[in-house]
């Protein structure tokens, strides 16, 4: 009951944010929501399934470029977003089949290479992706269902509500996934692959499922980007972007549900505030990462939860 109340309060807070927040704050919040979705999906793969992927930005990029290409010819927000997500899902399914056969370091290296292959395609395939200039002039298309309604998205507030709505939906779905038999099975595989296999679980199938869902979440985060910024450029596919959900999740807490979300908030706010005062933001982040790994592997969330900081 108390949990529900807390969540309700949070949702109300986010819902009324445009009333008292400036435009830049809304812009920042949208980015935080995007990073949260990105990190949530990443953590399904890492925290719950035990696979560290350094290539999630590749699927983010597929979602972003996919949505952008659609919006440039058919400016309907829903179609663009759904299209981007679908493409990212297909990509993660296909690449997942190739990746999940391996684990640990090899899995990480393999995802890194696929992510960078997508990056080099985005950079070099000028005709398709615009090359290093990227895709420009992407419209913030109206939210419409033909014949039913059409809502203009020109105002940052309107787009904010779309993003908020989709984010809450994504978070809710994630909750259901974690609580479901699928979620428990994944954790079982993470803890002991052999035991899970002995019980008759198709380890490969579940890993692939986890990988694909992570890819879908990355794709959703990516697809929500072009209408916000009106441009998509290759750095969204680079491994340094893949590192963001990793760092956010580490910051917030790897083994918890809320960790990626809390971490995304902290990570984004930290960077935003630190760069106003100094150009040396990397060393600040680096020190935080080192401190967390050395002492607080459960992340910020574990500092609040007594039973979290076991390791």
């Amino acid at each position, binding site marked *: 009951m108390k949990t529900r109340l807390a969540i309700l309060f*949070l949702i109300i807070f986010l819902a009324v944010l445009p009333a008292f927040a*400036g435009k*830049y704050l809304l812009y920042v919040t949208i980015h935080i929501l995007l990073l949260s979705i990105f990190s949530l999906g990443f953590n399904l793969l890492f925290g719950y399934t035990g696979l560290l992927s350094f290539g999630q930005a590749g699927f983010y990029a597929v979602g972003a470029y996919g949505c952008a290409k659609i919006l440039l010819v058919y400016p309907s927000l829903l179609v663009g977003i759904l299209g981007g997500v679908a493409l990212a899902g297909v990509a993660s399914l296909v690449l997942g089949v190739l990746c999940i056969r391996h684990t640990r370091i090899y899995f990480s290296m393999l995802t890194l290479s696929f992510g960078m292959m997508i990056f080099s395609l985005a950079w070099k395939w000028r005709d398709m992706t615009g090359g290093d200039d990227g895709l420009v*002039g992407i419209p913030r298309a109206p939210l419409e269902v033909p014949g039913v309604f059409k809502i203009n998205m020109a105002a940052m507030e309107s787009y904010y509500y779309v993003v908020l709505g989709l984010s809450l939906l994504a978070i809710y779905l994630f909750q259901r996934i974690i609580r479901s038999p699928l979620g428990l099975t994944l954790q079982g595989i993470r803890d002991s692959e052999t035991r899970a296999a002995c019980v008759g679980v198709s380890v490969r199938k579940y890993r692939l499922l986890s990988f694909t869902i992570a890819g879908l979440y990355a794709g959703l985060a990516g697809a929500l980007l072009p209408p916000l*910024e009106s441009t998509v450029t290759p750095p969204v596919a680079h491994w340094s972007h893949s590192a963001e959900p990793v760092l956010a999740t580490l910051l917030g807490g790897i083994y918890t549900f809320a960790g990626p979300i809390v971490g995304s*908030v902290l990570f984004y706010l930290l960077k935003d505030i630190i760069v106003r005062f100094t*150009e040396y933001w990397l060393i600040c982040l680096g020190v935080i990462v080192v401190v967390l790994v050395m002492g607080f592997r459960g992340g910020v969330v574990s500092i609040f939860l007594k039973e*979290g900081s076991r390791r």
Partner: protein
Amino acid sequence: MRERKRISRRTFLKTAAAGIGGMTLGLKGIEASAQDKTPAKAKPARKALGVDVIKLGGQGVISGAHADYGWQIQAGATLAVEEINAKGGVLGSKFEVKFMDEELKPAVAVKNARYLATEWGAHLLFGVDSSGSAMAVGPILPELDRICMFVHASTHRLTEELVADKGIKQIFRIAAPVYQEGNLAALIFKEFPNIKRWAGIHCDYEYGYSAWALFKDTLKKYRPDVEFVSIAWAPFWTMDFSSHISAVMAANPDGIHATPWAGEGVMLLRQALMLGVFDKIQAWFQCMGGSVDILEGISREVEAGKFKNKLWATARYIHNYPDTPENKKFVESFRKRWNRFPNYSAENAYSTIYVFKAALEKTRSLKTADLIKAIEGMKIMTAGGERFFRPEDHQAIYAVPGGRVVIDPKYPIPVLGDLKVFPAQAYYRHPPFEPLKMGK
């Protein structure tokens, strides 16, 4: 991974509370740090512009192989602001500059622009080193309702497409664009009948593609006898150009046209020397080789005569041209303040501030629409010469020569000499603009 976490209701509640608390604090923190920075409220009838401080938000590259350019933009802008403020500011209001790192990433440049304009309260924006960042920032300017004076980014697309074609009037560019690298070079080398075989070593991104395409197109028009025998592409973070140099030298070119700039440019030239290139070719055109950091970096080799007088270059401004009192004064003040020669980014930024001053004084208004009208069509004397802001595409027209890299006893570092000066009208592209075909 041995640990399993079961999420109990209590822990979830605590997490959520922590999250909300943290977020509220964080968001309040953002609001707070913005509060003390919003434009000061107007003092009744005292300042003509209605504010005590006119805020200028700038950005450039502050780290990596190209870091000097961000420093130069900051240095030039700061010098101008100090000079203007010392003389009483603009109509009684002082300038204030905030400068941020764009990290050569379009996403960061966009975020900075949004922050500077909406949160910090900048009245005018300037800067941006990379073309990709410029192309990303340009389209959001109407939403931000702010002018951005682009100080470095050289892509022709910024003015030809975004202004002339798409009508984004908030974009202005004070720096000479890639016409300098492409067309000016062609005008210089059409006069050398012995240089027939050209090769290119170029940046593997839009800057390199457009410079090479322009050079080829224009040169071919004047000299149908030239051939383009080889091209090598170097991506960002190329540290070692030996493969590129040896690849193009295999085709026995007479001349080489090269775009890698800043620290990469210096190492490219050094490696070319090592490979004996300057014994074989007749000319090497280092596009932005007239930039101070490159001239400083190769000064030892120039002094030793290693380039055999075959190294040519241009820039978007060189400190020894034009020979006017305005330019002399600028160079002297800059050297006194910073102990270095000004780069083209420095001059561009310095002149930008003075252009802003002129526009504000002319319109006596901070409104973007008024300022756009003021800068459009403006003819103004700057350190780099007289600049004319062409209304069709908001590009500043001014002539920068090309020349050989030589030692001049008047200067402690190499300079461009044997200057080939062409009127800007001769090598700038004019509307209607045809899209440039940039193949590889």
